[in-house]
């Protein structure tokens, strides 16, 4: 028999908390919290004493940026810790690491970190939550560089002492421009992989990874790059000396041995973000990580990286390449052309591509749309793009799974949405509308017309450009109820169509005039039921702006438009 309403309702009830007579239900059935953000949880915890009991522990799961005074009672609940630890007094730091013994994700930020403090914070003892067995992900950011090369050796030492056993993801970062000699040694990286063999993610951001004995002569002789034998050091089986004095940077150099591919120890690393100083650094790391799924390569401007990646990482699905940019030297682009045409055919399952600070030409994108069209979901072209309209259209046409296209460029050759190129404009829109999953669209160029986004039926009664709008209104939209002036008989096709069904973010170039009238704005918003972010800079006219302020105060406009 089922229980009587209101009488000792079962503790599994989710909504019992809402009606009277409830008890905190066991957590596993308490599903409301799944859908609540942190600020809502915080509000709920301030409703009543009982609600506090229920919600307060959930708040302790994450400690982000702001530090509670006293961790002694709830510290064991903290799973995620993200703190500017450098600003916290030493006693409080110790209090935190002694109380939070079940941490999973730890992000620590410092302006300056001395080796001594590093050793103290990650002291291998059972009372130290920062080296706990539940830690899966560790991120350490230090603005000042000098301590960074010591972090890997210290973590290796800690792991050998029997701690940090679950660590799988490591991120190191710094905030300084670095000199030639400032780097993390690739030998330490390899040693780290050997000691933490289950590592899934390694992320060094802009920290250069180099060889311990940096040979500047070699670097200048570019011809030597591809020749691994001359520069790669034999690292297998090297005995690493891990005592407290980790400032020893001198690594024994051993004569090279040629290793057959079968002899190379490999690791199941999935995700690598690296700025390799030389080709050989990259090569000797990638050879040990054949399972890489995500690879993020920075700053190395040598086209030779492509054959190496291609050979070593057959499973890549996410690839980001950030080139050197032109600031460095004018000759950086003279290194030779990147052989994307032979690279992408190896990766038909590529899902995500990001190019930055590197020259992307039509040919590159043709290859992408030819070989990676099936699964490509994200495509970003950021700085250095030189592609023409037709090429972008081809990408839009062939990559049907595309969810996100960002093309931030000052050098778009051809006008994707230019009014003088009306055909291209309409054509491109039809393509966009045919991408059912597109969630993000961001294009910057010049001469954009708002009509480019709207179907002709929405704004123009005929195909003649720039004619006065006849605007469709959907009465079901509450926001439209006050303007009853214009309501021409809606054509059924136009009402049923939501052009940008999934679109959440949209960014468009600056307009020369305030071209977005209230009618156009409404038609736009109507076609994008899910939009959360819409950035047209200050292209709205007065009426549209005022309407936005009153009716859609929560819409993120990117800039302050009023």
């Amino acid at each position, binding site marked *: 028999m*089922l*229980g009587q309403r209101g009488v000792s309702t*079962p503790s599994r009830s989710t*909504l019992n908390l809402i009606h009277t007579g409830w008890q905190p239900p066991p957590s*596993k059935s308490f599903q409301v919290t799944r859908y609540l953000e942190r600020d*809502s949880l915080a509000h*709920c*915890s301030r*409703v009543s004493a009982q609600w506090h009991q229920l919600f307060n522990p959930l708040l302790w799961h994450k400690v982000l940026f702001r530090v509670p005074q006293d961790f002694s009672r709830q510290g064991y609940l903290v*799973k995620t810790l993200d703190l500017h630890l450098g600003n916290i007094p030493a006693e409080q730091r110790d209090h935190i690491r002694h109380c939070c013994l079940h941490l999973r994700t730890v992000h620590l930020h410092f302006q300056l970190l001395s080796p001594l403090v590093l050793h103290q914070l990650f002291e291998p003892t059972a009372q130290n939550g920062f080296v706990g067995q539940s830690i899966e992900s560790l991120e350490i950011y230090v603005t000042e560089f000098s301590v960074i090369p010591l972090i890997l050796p210290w973590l290796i030492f800690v792991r050998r002492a029997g701690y940090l056993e679950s660590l799988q993801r490591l991120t190191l970062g710094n905030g300084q421009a670095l000199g030639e000699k400032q780097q993390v040694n690739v030998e330490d990286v390899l040693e780290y992989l050997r000691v933490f063999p289950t590592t899934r993610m390694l992320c060094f951001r802009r920290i250069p990874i180099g060889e311990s004995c940096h040979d500047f002569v070699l670097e200048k002789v570019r011809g030597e790059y591809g020749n691994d034998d001359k520069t790669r050091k034999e690292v297998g089986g090297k005995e690493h000396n891990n005592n407290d004095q980790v400032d020893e940077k001198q690594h024994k150099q051993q004569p090279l041995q040629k290793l057959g591919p079968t002899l190379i120890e490999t690791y199941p690393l999935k995700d690598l973000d690296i700025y390799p100083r030389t080709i050989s650094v990259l090569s000797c790391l990638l050879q040990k990580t054949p399972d890489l799924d995500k690879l993020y390569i920075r700053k190395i401007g040598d086209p030779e990286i492509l054959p190496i990646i291609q050979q070593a990482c057959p499973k890549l699905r996410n690839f980001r390449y950030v080139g050197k940019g032109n600031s460095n030297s004018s000759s950086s682009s003279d290194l030779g052309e990147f052989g994307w045409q032979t690279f992408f055919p190896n990766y038909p399952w590529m899902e995500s591509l990001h190019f930055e600070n590197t020259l992307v030409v039509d040919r590159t994108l043709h290859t992408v749309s030819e070989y990676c069209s099936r699964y490509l979901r994200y495509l970003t072209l950021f700085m250095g793009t030189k592609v023409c309209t037709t090429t972008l259209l081809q990408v839009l046409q062939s990559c049907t799974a595309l969810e996100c296209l960002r093309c931030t460029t000052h050098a778009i050759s051809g006008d994707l949405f230019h009014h003088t190129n009306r055909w291209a404009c309409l054509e491109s829109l039809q393509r966009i509308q045919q991408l059912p999953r597109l969630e993000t669209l961001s294009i910057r160029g010049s001469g954009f017309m708002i009509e480019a986004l709207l179907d002709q039926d929405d704004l123009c009664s005929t195909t003649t450009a720039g004619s006065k709008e006849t605007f469709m209104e959907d009465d079901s939209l509450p926001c439209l109820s006050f303007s009853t002036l214009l309501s021409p008989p809606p054509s059924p096709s136009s009402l049923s169509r939501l052009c940008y069904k999934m679109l959440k973010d949209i960014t468009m170039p600056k307009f020369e005039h305030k071209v977005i009238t209230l009618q156009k704005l409404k038609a736009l918003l109507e076609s994008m039921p899910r939009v959360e972010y819409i950035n047209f800079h200050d292209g709205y006219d007065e009426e549209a702006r005022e309407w936005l302020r009153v009716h859609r105060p929560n819409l993120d406009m990117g800039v302050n438009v009023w």
Partner: protein
Amino acid sequence: MKVTLESSDGQVFTVDKEVAELSVIIKEMLVIEQANQDHPIPLLNVGAVELAKVIEYCEHHRNDPTIDDDEDYDSRKKPIEMDDWDKQFTIVNKEMMFELILAANSMQVKPLLHLGCRYAADIVKRMSPTEIRDLFQIDDDFTPEEQDKIEWEKQWTKL
């Protein structure tokens, strides 16, 4: 095979067995009372209006895969997507929805319970503590000391 259900106010509903079995409670009862299926199954705390709505839900979702309810509440799994039908289904007034959630809970119709939780969360979202108190008619029963503690908490829990 058909099963009959009786609401708290005495209305009888006849549904397919597989539809009724979306309710864990009914499923269990059917196992126990296999022999005795002449009588309608009484649902003492579900009114006819709510029961009709629950059945409507179960009819629509009769072929859905069962969801695993035993995961940790902080699991990183994405919340279940609502389809258009579900969205239409939840366009009812708050009182009705809360009644439905209670019904789903007492009958243990888990997907509906999830849907309800999501609905409740959407309502509570962005409400201030005072508004939540008003909505659910809860008294602010913090002692002055607790109030102080909460002021402290405010400081570090906001983002």
